[in-house]
């Protein structure tokens, strides 16, 4: 599917009906629960902003094909070891980040590039509309294990430690200074 022709991405809006969203596998049930029960409230109260991919053609017109949710976050490295370079790397005990907290594509529309488009869009929002105006060093996500490869293809780095690789939701990130 092609952005602009087959679907568009915009912020979640009050009329959007989230009830019909299907996630399929039980692994992704928490994503549906959030979308149906909390996304509107989080969005309206400024807790987390959700972006939806919306069908743009007759058969899919106004259907929610996927969504992504962004929230302000931070990466706390207070317990880190000392490194020598750069000189002031340890001056900061925590680093500002935006977290890609939720990402899901309706199971009926997977394999069409919608998830990739949502990540591309979110990265651009953070790099273009957040980082230039407010301190923000990373886009970070807690990836589900089956999605690690998906995020790596889009440029996310897997924190390369045994604990993280073995975790249920490994931490992955994009360093905004390097894009």
């Amino acid at each position: 599917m092609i952005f602009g022709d087959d679907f568009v991405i915009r912020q979640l809006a009050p009329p959007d009906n989230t009830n019909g969203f299907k996630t399929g596998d039980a692994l992704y049930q928490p994503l549906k629960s959030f979308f149906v029960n909390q996304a509107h409230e989080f969005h309206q109260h400024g807790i987390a902003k959700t972006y939806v991919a919306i069908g743009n053609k007759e058969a899919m017109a106004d259907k929610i094909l996927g969504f992504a949710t962004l929230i302000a976050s931070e990466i706390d490295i207070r317990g880190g070891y000392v490194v020598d370079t750069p000189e002031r790397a340890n001056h900061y005990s925590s680093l500002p980040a935006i977290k890609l907290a939720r990402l899901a594509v309706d199971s009926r529309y997977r394999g069409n590039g919608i998830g990739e488009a949502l990540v591309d869009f979110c990265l651009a929002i953070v790099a273009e509309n957040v980082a230039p105006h407010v301190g923000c060093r990373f886009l970070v996500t807690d990836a589900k294990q089956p999605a690690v490869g998906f995020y790596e293809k889009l440029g996310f780095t897997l924190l390369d430690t045994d604990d993280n690789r073995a975790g249920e939701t490994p931490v992955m990130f994009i360093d905004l200074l390097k894009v």
Partner: protein
Amino acid sequence: MAIHTSTFGRVELSGKDAERFQRHMTEDKPNPAAEASLARGREMLRRINVLAQPTPKKQ
């Protein structure tokens, strides 16, 4: 546990995980896949901004 993270919260790293993260920060090279993702996202934002421009009225 050296990693604490919650879906809608912060990421806390300590010990080897924090040390490795700092090495990622200082040693990793730019990732071409991330650069490509950002380029595609920027193009989407550009198209949306163009579409959002009011259509000039005919004189």
